[in-house]
Every structure is written in structure tokens, then in C-alpha cells.
């Protein structure tokens, strides 16, 4: 375990060393923006609508009390979406999509000697392959989470319109009540940490694959499991650190 942690830190040190050529790096970065970020917009938007709607219905169901004002439902749904559902649940989904994608891509490159080819050419493979992935995710996943928050809240409003759990007007009043901008800061800090965990852990697992196609498949699964556990653990740590 300690040895793996040491290997992971060594890989990150190699990853964050100076890149070989800025023009090549910029091209790689743009490629990864599309490959990892842009292609994730669809799944994030679809999930966010439903997560927002379900969150609103659940809050309404659990606070069905005449003594509680209806706008509390909009407020609670907003807080849940901003503070937990969008940053954590969407990051877990992205750990599945991006984690397996990164691990299988790097794992395949490792077992087919493409990484060796880069190394013998005098290129730092960790820097060339992993750094653009990490930077693009650190920049793009927060954007996805902002989309997710907006669409999640919209999903809650749609739930109000189509199920009538509360009136859309009361939902909107709730959304606008007791808003603290720090909630967004909190969500963004969590998102950036989760983005780094997803990309760096998956990259490490894919980059260090030994064997053949079976091991690449195992690495892909392992990257999802380990990234997801890391996200949940850091969710607890960050929530404790930043909200108390």
C-alpha cells in the first residue's frame, strides 16, 4: 500500500514536470477537453434533470407537514443539489465514465508498448499523456458541475410542474431564500478535488498496467472502484473541514 502510494506520488511528480513543447501540449489539452469534457455533457445533463426532480419530490415527501412552509422544499432541494448531489453524485458518475476511459486508454498504450515508444524517443510519457488529462478535467469538470446544478434545479421545478408536489411559485421562492454564495465555493472546492482524484488515480492505474487485455479490463474496473472510494472519503473530509 505504501509502495503504491510512493509510486503514485512519483508518477505525479513526473506528470507535473515541464512539458516538452508548448504547441504540442496545447493541442493535447484541446483534444482532452473534447475527449474527456465535452463528451460528458450529455450524460451530466440527463442525470442532473432526474437527480434534481427526485431530490425535490423526496424533500416534499419527507416534509409533508402543515407547520413547515412550502418554500422550505425549494430551499432544501437547492442546498442538496448544490452541496452534495451535483458535486458528489455527478463526480461519482464521472469516475465511472472518465476513470474507465483513462485507465483503459493508458493501459492499452502500456501493453502495446506505445508508452515505451514515447520513453525511448526521449519524451516524458507521464507528462505528455497524463498532464493534459488532469488539467482539462480540473478546468472542465467544474463547468460541468455548474451546468449540473442549474439543470438539477430546473429538474426540481419540472417535478413541481408535472407532479404538483408544491406550486412552482413556492419552489422558486424557496430557491431564492437564505442563499449563501459560500455553498457554491464549497461545491467548487469539492469538485476540483474530485476531478484531480478521478484523473490522477485512473491515470496511475492505467499507466502501471502489466500484462495484456485482461489486465487492462481489470485496471479499468479498479480505477472506477478506487476513484469512487476516494471521492466518498474526501467528501467526508472536505465537508467536515469546510462546513464546520
Amino acid at each position, binding site marked *: 500500500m505504501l509502495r503504491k502510494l510512493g509510486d503514485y506520488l512519483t508518477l505525479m511528480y513526473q506528470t507535473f514536470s515541464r512539458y516538452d513543447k508548448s504547441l504540442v501540449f496545447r493541442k493535447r489539452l484541446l483534444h482532452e477537453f473534447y475527449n474527456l469534457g465535452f463528451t460528458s455533457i450529455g450524460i451530466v445533463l440527463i442525470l442532473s434533470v432526474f437527480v434534481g426532480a427526485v431530490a425535490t419530490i423526496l424533500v416534499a415527501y419527507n416534509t409533508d407537514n402543515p407547520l413547515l412552509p412550502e418554500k422550505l422544499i425549494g430551499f432544501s432541494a437547492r442546498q442538496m443539489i448544490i452541496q452534495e448531489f451535483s458535486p458528489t453524485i455527478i463526480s461519482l458518475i464521472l469516475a465511472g465514465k472518465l476513470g474507465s476511459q483513462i485507465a483503459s486508454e493508458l493501459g492499452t498504450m502500456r501493453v502495446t508498448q*506505445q508508452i515505451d515508444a514515447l520513453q525511448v524517443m*526521449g519524451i516524458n510519457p507521464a507528462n505528455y499523456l497524463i498532464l493534459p488529462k488532469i488539467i482539462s478535467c480540473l478546468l472542465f469538470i467544474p463547468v460541468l458541475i455548474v451546468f449540473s446544478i442549474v439543470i438539477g434545479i430546473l429538474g426540481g421545478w419540472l417535478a413541481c410542474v408535472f407532479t404538483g408536489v408544491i406550486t412552482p411559485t413556492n419552489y422558486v421562492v424557496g430557491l431564492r431564500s437564505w442563499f449563501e454564495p459560500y455553498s457554491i465555493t464549497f461545491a467548487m472546492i469539492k469538485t476540483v478535488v474530485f476531478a484531480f482524484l478521478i484523473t490522477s488515480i485512473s491515470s496511475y492505474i492505467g499507466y502501471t498496467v502489466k500484462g495484456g487485455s485482461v489486465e487492462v479490463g481489470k485496471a479499468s474496473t479498479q480505477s472506477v472502484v478506487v476513484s469512487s472510494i476516494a471521492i466518498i472519503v474526501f467528501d467526508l473530509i472536505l465537508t467536515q473541514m469546510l462546513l464546520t
Partner: protein
Amino acid sequence: MIKVEHISKSFGDHLVLDDITATFERGKTNLIIGQSGSGKTVLTKICIGLFEPDSGVVTFDDRPFSNIKEKHKIDIRKDMGVLFQGGALFDSMNVEENVMFPLNMFTDMSYEEKLERVNFCLNRVNLKGVNHLMTSELSGGMMKRVAIARAISNSPKYLFCDEPNSGLDPVTSELIDDLISEITEEYNMTTIINTHDMNSVLKIGQTINFIYKGKLWWQGDSKSVLHSDNKELDEFLFSTELTKRLKTI
């Protein structure tokens, strides 16, 4: 010229290379031959810096290459071209991008200059009109030739080939051998080929190093290899039914 001196390498308790000393000359095709598991791939990987030897040194034209920091190896690495067994072409790139890759990374040439060089290298390996094919669309022989084109695109001084004939039919295999031999002479490169293909041994082996159980067992050339009285080399060379029958003729 590449020299390996007193190279030893173990994995755990298993001694893979035992005190190997050899010289690989410029302008010649230098072969490393031996049975599977004899240690020839490990020796090649030590030469290209993918493994570090436990002891001994590797020098490229008197420049040390083993057991030094990675950043100090870069100048030598830029003079290297490597043909991996499976080609190791970047599967996310097409043929043109693969061959252009070293030029993108290490030169400031314009796109037109790079394209001219890519087309020259592809023509040199007898491939035309394949620039925009993806690697998955290439046959085994074409893949090897694209890999050779990529290896020579940056005009290397040293060329390493890891089993260049593996998985190829005899005709394509001979084409690849001829190509490697020609470009070695043409560009005056130091070429090291790791092979167990008998045809390559006899046809292009200007110097031959036979590795047996991790030791350098025999050295010579394609003329002397057939008449050697070395028992292990003899067993290796004449191990198939065809070569056994040929020997008796």
C-alpha cells in the same frame, strides 16, 4: 558505435544476463540471437534505457547511457530509432501523424517541411498513398514499415529492432530485412537487431552475438555462423526439421 561492458541483470533471484560485453559497430547490422528466454530482449531493453543494468555500462559513441538520470539520457534518446516487436504505432493517430510525431516533438520544421520528410520516409519503406490510413487498417508488414519510417524520420544514429520479422510471412519478412539492411548502410547507422529468424541471421548478420542462458556464448558473422563448432549455437541454428535436413545435404 554502441558498447555494452560487463552487463548483468537479475529479476528477483533469476539471473537473466551474466557479464555481457559486446561492441555493436556503426554502419553494420548487429544481430543479437538466442532462444526465447535467453535474455536478448532484456539486453535490448537495457540498451534503449527501458531497464537499468544491475552492473556494467552502456555507452553510445563513448557517451554513457546506463545508470544516469533520465534528463541526461535525452540527447542520446533523440538519436535513437526503435522498431518494437508489435510496431507500437500510436493507434489514435494515422500513418502520417505517426511518422511526423518525432518531427513535431523535436524539430521546428514547418508543416510543409515535415510533410516532405514524412513522404520521403514512407517512400523509402515502399509505402505510398497510405498517409491517412489509421493503424488498424494496416497489415502486419505495413505496420512494421510504418514503424521503420517513424524510427528513421528524425535521422537517428542508432536503430534498434526487436524481432522485426515476428508474425510476418517469409516474403514480407525478407523485405523488412532488406529494408533494415539498406537503410543501415545508407544512413551509416549503428543497427542492433534482436531476432531468432534464421533467414535474417544468414542474410543480414554482419556481426552476430549469440546469447545462451544469459551469457554471451558466441560472436561472429553470417559466414562463420554456419561452420561454428559451438554445440549450443549449432543446436539453436539447426533446431528445425528443415534446417536439420539442409545441414545433411
